[in-house]
């Protein structure tokens, strides 16, 4: 007889859907079916059951082959690597729970490491902008119940956050949005005609990288001042139409993604997007929210900020926390060759860093803690597979609107496998002995 577990949290994207249903075998050892999740979320749950999964830590030999080692040996190697290194980099954290992140921060403090999370290649520039001018934001519940003007700027939720629109932003019938999608206007700004853009009332097909100009033009249009005929490839009439649509709403929200954070003006794009939000509050109620990618990248920023005072790009090498993106950020540290050991957990810099930042990882002592085989595990000296967080272990995670949600364990991990947190505790205790820390 199978069991159905309801209200399961999906550990894929920052939407952190909390209505998943999972069917498990009677003994709770096998996950059989997944309901309500998007195609990516379903794959994440189901892949945990793969028969070819790596279940034991593996050390790379001189001839390039892998040799299975025990978790004790893996923890010894990791602790010694961190103890010896002058400037280790501890990167990732976004696909694990806050409890593990907190243990990781203890390790970072003892080993005087640089710590960073995947915001480095995602919403890092957003965090800089928020520190510059603040963030008028709200929760996704408020969006569902109140928002009638939805702007997706440089993001494509149809692909990256597949259930965002159906759960929160476009389709749901909320308290003041009883007609669902009929009561909302949708504006999309993207250089491609994305599947999100195809659904929009207004799509501004901007010239790539001209976001700053267009956002500035919107600020001019709100005030009804003079505009050039074309800004960023968009005719002024279309800009005024979009501006009027934004102003005429009762509650609006700008969701923004990598289109603005990764294009040339970077944090300045976000600065001006937040200024647009501020301007709009002179006419109506408006909010802005980053579309966070990993399911717990927000949580990692929260834990870093709570324990070290900064949300990412932290350098503890001097014994206290310093923060200076560009100097203390992972990509720059790696490209400049300043790091002498690499510790990766819950992310894949091998696949998602520019190759010039990956090459140094292959030439230094390195540990990759990840349930999957990845390009990072492919270039690391030690690969430590762990239980899938959110599937085989629970723990606290933060949704993209900073709402903490406890993930649930639905199935047992393969026999003998540890969770991130259990492995990190082993490393921490060894490191304390090596460093003589209390």
């Amino acid at each position, binding site marked *: 007889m199978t069991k159905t577990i309801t209200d399961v949290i999906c550990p*894929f994207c920052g939407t952190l859907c909390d209505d998943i249903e999972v069917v498990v075998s009677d003994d709770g050892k096998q996950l059989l079916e997944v309901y309500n999740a998007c*195609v*990516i979320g379903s*794959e*994440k749950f189901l*892949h945990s059951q793969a028969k070819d999964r790596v279940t034991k830590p593996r050390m790379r*030999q*001189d*001839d*390039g*082959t*892998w040799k299975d080692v025990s978790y004790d040996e893996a923890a010894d190697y990791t602790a010694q690597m961190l103890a010896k290194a002058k400037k280790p980099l501890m990167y990732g954290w976004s696909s694990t729970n806050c409890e593990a992140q907190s243990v990781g921060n203890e390790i970072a403090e003892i080993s005087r490491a640089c710590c960073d999370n995947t915001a480095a*290649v995602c919403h*890092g*520039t957003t965090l800089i902008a928020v520190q510059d001018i603040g963030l008028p934001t709200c929760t996704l519940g408020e969006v569902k119940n109140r928002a009638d003007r939805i702007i997706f700027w440089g993001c*494509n939720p*149809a*692909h*990256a956050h*597949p259930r965002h629109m159906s759960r929160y932003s476009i389709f749901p019938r909320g308290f003041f949005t009883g007609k669902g999608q009929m009561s909302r206007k949708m504006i999309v700004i993207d*250089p*491609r*005609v994305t599947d999100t853009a195809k659904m929009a009332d207004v799509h501004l*097909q901007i010239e*790539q*990288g001209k976001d700053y100009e267009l956002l500035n033009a919107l600020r001019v249009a709100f005030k009804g001042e003079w505009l050039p005929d074309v800004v960023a490839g968009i005719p002024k009439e279309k800009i005024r139409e979009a501006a009027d649509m934004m102003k005429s709403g009762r509650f609006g929200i700008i969701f923004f993604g*990598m*289109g603005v954070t*990764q294009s*040339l003006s*970077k944090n300045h794009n976000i600065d001006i997007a937040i200024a647009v939000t501020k301007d709009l509050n002179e006419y109506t109620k408006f909010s802005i929210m980053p579309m966070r*990618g990993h399911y717990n990248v927000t949580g990692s920023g929260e834990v870093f900020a709570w324990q070290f005072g900064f949300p*990412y*790009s932290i350098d503890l090498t001097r014994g206290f926390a310093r923060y200076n*993106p*560009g*100097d203390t*950020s*992972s*990509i*720059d540290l790696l490209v400049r060759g300043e790091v002498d050991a690499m510790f990766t957990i819950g992310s*894949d810099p*091998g*696949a*998602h860093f*520019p*190759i*010039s*930042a*990956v*090459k140094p*990882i*292959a*030439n230094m002592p390195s540990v990759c803690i990840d349930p*999957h*085989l*990845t*390009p990072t595990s*492919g*270039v690391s000296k030690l690969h430590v597979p762990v239980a899938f967080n959110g599937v085989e272990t629970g723990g606290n995670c933060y949704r993209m609107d900073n709402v903490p949600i406890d993930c649930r364990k639905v199935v047992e991990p393969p026999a003998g496998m540890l969770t991130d947190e259990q492995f990190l505790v082993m490393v921490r205790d060894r490191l304390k002995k090596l460093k003589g820390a209390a």
Partner: protein
Amino acid sequence: MTKNITLNLISGRTIQQGVAIESGKEKPSYRTACGIIEMDNADLKALGAWKNTNVRVTSDHGSVIVKAIEATQGPHPGVAFIPMGPWANSIVDPNTYSTGMPTFKGTPVKIEVTINEPILLGIELVQIQCGVKVG
């Protein structure tokens, strides 16, 4: 002389990329999802390439072989799209301009047809570029 064209490269997520990373980056499905370059029809014509042809994409920062496919979310003449992953990251601009964030969107690239060159698997592509010995 081989024909080539210059386009503005952006990268980003696709739902196929999301499924592929969760089902295993060691598998050929990851290459099918991300070892591609989406080009506008007009740009494919200008290059003189059929759809689904292997092409070499070169920037100031590297070079990679991917499959040129017709834009799925177009039209976007002048803009090329490679889903985020090791193929895109072999050629994107790593400069962070002191923000910590590489310039993943907006790298000028040169594209030329290379029908006979193979597209590598994701992990293999990174290992070869990093000079990792594989047993």
